[in-house]
């Protein structure tokens, strides 16, 4: 069962990279803001139908939730818009890999200080080493991308 679930989660990563590629393509015709708007609108409609049938939570609880929790929505909008800007310019791998690095670095910082009511996890030796390997990954992806671009030109 567990290995099945891990495969299922791999599939989640696949849909995310497919989304960024699809949106990058659509934005060439429609524009960045328009692509983000369409993604959010169709996502809302699809989710609304799913909640109607399978929702077990309490949507009206939104009204009582603290404002700082609700501000997550601006982050969601930033994320999608920035990805759409980057994809046509630096490609699918560079965008997704760089996004993941940004995500992990901030994640490590949030963990270290225990912000937003999460558990606190120290930035220990292995985690600092992980930061170094992420910097290395960024260096390689930048270099690799530059190489394919010069090849394409020549």
């Amino acid at each position: 069962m567990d290995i099945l679930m891990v495969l299922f989660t791999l599939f989640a990563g696949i849909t995310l990279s497919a989304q960024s590629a699809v949106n990058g393509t659509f934005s060439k015709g429609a524009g960045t803001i328009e692509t983000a708007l369409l993604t959010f609108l169709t996502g809302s409609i699809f989710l609304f139908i799913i909640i109607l049938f399978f929702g077990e939570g309490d949507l009206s609880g939104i009204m009582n939730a603290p404002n700082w929790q609700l501000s997550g929505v601006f982050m969601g909008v930033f994320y999608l818009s920035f990805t759409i800007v980057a994809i046509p310019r630096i490609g699918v791998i560079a965008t997704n890999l760089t996004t993941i690095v940004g995500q992990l670095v901030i994640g490590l910082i949030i963990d270290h200080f225990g912000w937003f009511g999460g558990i606190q996890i120290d930035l220990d030796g292995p985690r600092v080493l992980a930061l170094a390997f992420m910097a290395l990954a960024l260096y390689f992806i930048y270099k690799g991308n530059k190489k394919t671009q010069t090849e394409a030109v020549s």
Partner: protein
Amino acid sequence: MRYFSYIFALLAGAALSFESALYGDLGKSIGELETTFYNFAVGSLILGLIWLFFGKGKLSYTMEAPKWSLIGGILGVVYLLSIVISVPFVGVGITMVAVIIGQIVMSMIIEHFGWLGSAASRINKEKVFAVLSMIIALILINQ
């Protein structure tokens, strides 16, 4: 402009981390699906306003575009649903590692073959090294 795109991508990831930290408690109090719906619905409103005042593109392109290029929103929801379903079974750590590996490997395949309308760009040694470095970083974080 190329440097800017890398910085934009870094900021996008940072935003994603803040988003999940901010929504962590909300998900527990009103439900994961409901939180995601809140995010998409209010995000649509915010983007609708931004589009009204600053939109320079062509929303009507939606009607002309090939239908497969319209599935971005649905893919985003499928992604979130898969995560919500798998976390209780395998935990957050393994879920995140599997998601990221799935994402990077699929990105390589998409870009190498130029699928989904993206510009084809061959895999080279540097890109493979980049992916390996990421996997080492993930193992270090999750041990």
